């Protein structure tokens, strides 16, 4: 369906995303990072004691951890100016009618309640630092599926499960922004799918950022029992401000034996956002993790979902597209650790660079000694739309097992003139021809997304193409 949408360029603009909510936050901490600020966040959130200690310890780790020595510069990001916690003037609700109008209107404009009615099993909506809406369809809840905000999860029936898993896959010591996350995290979703339960329609969490100069640090924890399945969708956007905003979320996914989890993201942060996000999944025997990732927004991104294929026969798929336009520096990719036997991974990464945008594909695939029979296929395709832009491909493959089959292919280039000519000879304008070819380039990703999201992605692409080429 996707390329079809491209042929009917709808009038489209960033207005939907750029809409600034005029509501005032109820509470926010001072900018910067101090133990006092961290304690204030704990007070505000009525943290259990272990979490209080965890936050303060993470702050210590943050302070002694250096910035990464690679990747795009983070000079524009000054933590002293970032407000790490902003509570909107709304209580969490299970009913859109009780969400304050100004906030509700924002989510209406983004089409969230509509999507909930038509094709989702549950929705979580976060506004700045707190979740303002969370709901799950009764029939899904009846299967024993838990879908709630993290604050509730931390205190509720599953508190012990949360504590056992929280930042165990992605410890605060891993890198500086995970330490920061551990100190100031707020919001996000917790999902638990019991053994044998297949959730047929997706759950979605949407993260909306409204405050200028603030940070969003939501935590997503998903645990699938044995032989369970789930499709989880994450959406994010923010209006554009002239000051740097920071997003340092953390996503931890536990995929049990024989289970299958698909995690789809359409990231469309505004162009003042530093998106330093961390995602990791661990997959037990016979389980599958599928990442579908579209990165369109932000000023600077560092994002590499990692799959740890711990169990035998575990699988992962990564299908990602990154579109770097003017002023954007997007460093994205994926990491896979093959640990179990007969594990397999299939990686397809695409990138498009335009109007001076810079994109980097970064990959890290390791095959450990015991991962006999592992199979890996990687394909990277980069499209350069002009010579002001950059596109770099930096994959590393590290194999310590002889019984491995690895195929790797990377290509970089531009749209062939001959292809444009061919389409133009059938009556398409040059812009439409380019748009169609780029849309086709992105098709393997959009076809992995639910219809509405594929449409959104194609809109974003056509917006990028028609917005600047002429």
């Amino acid at each position, binding site marked *: 369906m996707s390329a*079809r949408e491209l042929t009917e360029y709808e009038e489209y603009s960033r207005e939907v995303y750029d809409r600034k909510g005029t509501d005032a936050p109820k509470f926010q901490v001072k900018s910067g990072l101090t133990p006092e600020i961290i304690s204030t966040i704990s007070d505000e959130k009525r943290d259990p004691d272990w979490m209080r200690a965890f936050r303060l310890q993470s702050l210590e780790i943050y302070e002694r951890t250096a910035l990464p020595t690679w990747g795009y510069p983070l000079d524009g990001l000054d933590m002293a100016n970032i407000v790490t916690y902003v509570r909107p003037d709304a209580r969490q609700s299970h009913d859109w009618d009780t969400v304050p109008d100004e906030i509700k209107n924002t989510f209406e404009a983004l089409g969230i309640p509509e999507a909930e009615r038509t094709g989702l099993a549950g929705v979580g909506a976060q506004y700045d630092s707190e979740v303002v809406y969370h709901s799950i369809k009764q029939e899904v809840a009846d299967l024993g599926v838990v879908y709630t905000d993290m604050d509730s999860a931390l205190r509720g029936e599953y508190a012990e499960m949360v504590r056992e898993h929280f930042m165990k896959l992605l410890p605060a010591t891993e890198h500086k922004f995970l330490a920061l996350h551990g100190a100031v995290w707020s919001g996000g979703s917790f999902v638990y799918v019991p053994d044998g339960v297949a959730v047929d329609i997706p759950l979605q969490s949407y993260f909306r950022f409204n405050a200028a100069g603030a940070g969003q640090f939501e935590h997503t924890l998903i645990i699938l029992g044995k032989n369970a399945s789930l499709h989880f969708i994450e959406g994010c956007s923010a209006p554009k401000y002239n000051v740097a905003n920071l997003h340092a979320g953390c996503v931890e996914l536990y995929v049990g034996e024989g289970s299958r989890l698909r995690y789809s993201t359409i990231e469309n942060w505004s162009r003042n956002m530093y998106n330093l996000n961390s995602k990791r999944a661990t997959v037990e025997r016979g389980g599958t993790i599928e990442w579908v990732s579209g990165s369109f927004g932000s000023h600077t991104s560092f994002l590499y979902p990692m799959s740890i294929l711990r169990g035998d026969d575990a699988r992962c798929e990564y299908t990602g597209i990154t579109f770097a336009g003017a002023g954007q520096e997007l460093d994205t990719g994926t990491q896979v650790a093959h640990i179990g036997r007969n594990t397999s991974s299939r990686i397809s990464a695409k990138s498009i660079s335009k109007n001076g945008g810079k994109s980097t594909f970064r990959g890290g695939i390791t095959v450990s000694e015991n991962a006999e029979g592992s199979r890996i296929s990687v394909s990277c395709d980069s499209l350069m739309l002009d010579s002001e832009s950059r596109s770099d491909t930096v994959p590393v493959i590290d194999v310590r097992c002889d019984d491995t089959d690895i195929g790797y292919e990377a290509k970089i280039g531009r749209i062939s003139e001959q292809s444009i*000519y061919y389409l*133009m*000879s059938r009556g398409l304008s040059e812009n439409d021809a380019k748009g169609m070819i780029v849309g*086709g380039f992105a098709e393997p990703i959009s076809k992995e997304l639910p219809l509405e999201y594929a449409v959104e992605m194609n809109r974003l692409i056509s917006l990028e193409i028609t917005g600047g080429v002429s």
Partner: protein
Amino acid sequence: MTKPLLDVRNLHVNVGEKLILRGLNLTVNAGETHVIMGQNGSGKSTLAAAIMGSPMFDVSDGTVEFLGEDITRLSPDKRAKLGVFLSFQNPEEIPGVTVENFLRAAVGAVTGETPRLFKFQKELFAKMDELGLDRVYASRELNVGFSGGEKKKTEILQLLMLNPKLAILDEADSGLDVDAVRVVSDGINKYRNADNAMLIITHNQRLVDDIKVDYVHVLDDKHITLTGGAELISRIADGGFAAVHGDITE
């Protein structure tokens, strides 16, 4: 007097430094079918590309007029909208774009109105059936992984859907088996009527066996050296280009 559909005057075409066509003249009127014959490398495909406006060739002198309008410097899409169509010798593969989506966009671009999905599909399937092209090809990516025959049939499908005033067929039969050639020539015959015209580029006669041909031109030494009727085809088929060499008068 009505204007000719296509009027090529003194056409000079270069690729980089190299001159491929030098002073070629050709007039095609509505209702006519012309065949251009010539050996490999004689510049037949260059002529087709220059009429369509390929960016790979430079027209260094001369003009191409279509229905009285000078289109020498027009972009290919504008030429397509005026009613020029070229069936490519090697159609491009466009990954991720289905035949159906592509054709619907093309028909929309040429007619100025995107056809309604249902009506469009009906017409598309009818034409695919006529060409013996399995309907699953509508949802296949354009030319990606197509065999030579499938590509050629898809080109003819596009010809029928876009219904241009002038169809240029560049080696539309190369690499096809007998049955596929039949399908292509049937398609061409379906397209042909008194208001449109065809320019067929070929170096063998199989395709034109079943088509009524009005004029045959021999392209040699960078221009047209001989023009005659359909009988030239069989003479060339029997004796090669040498057989007609004596007829060259200029």
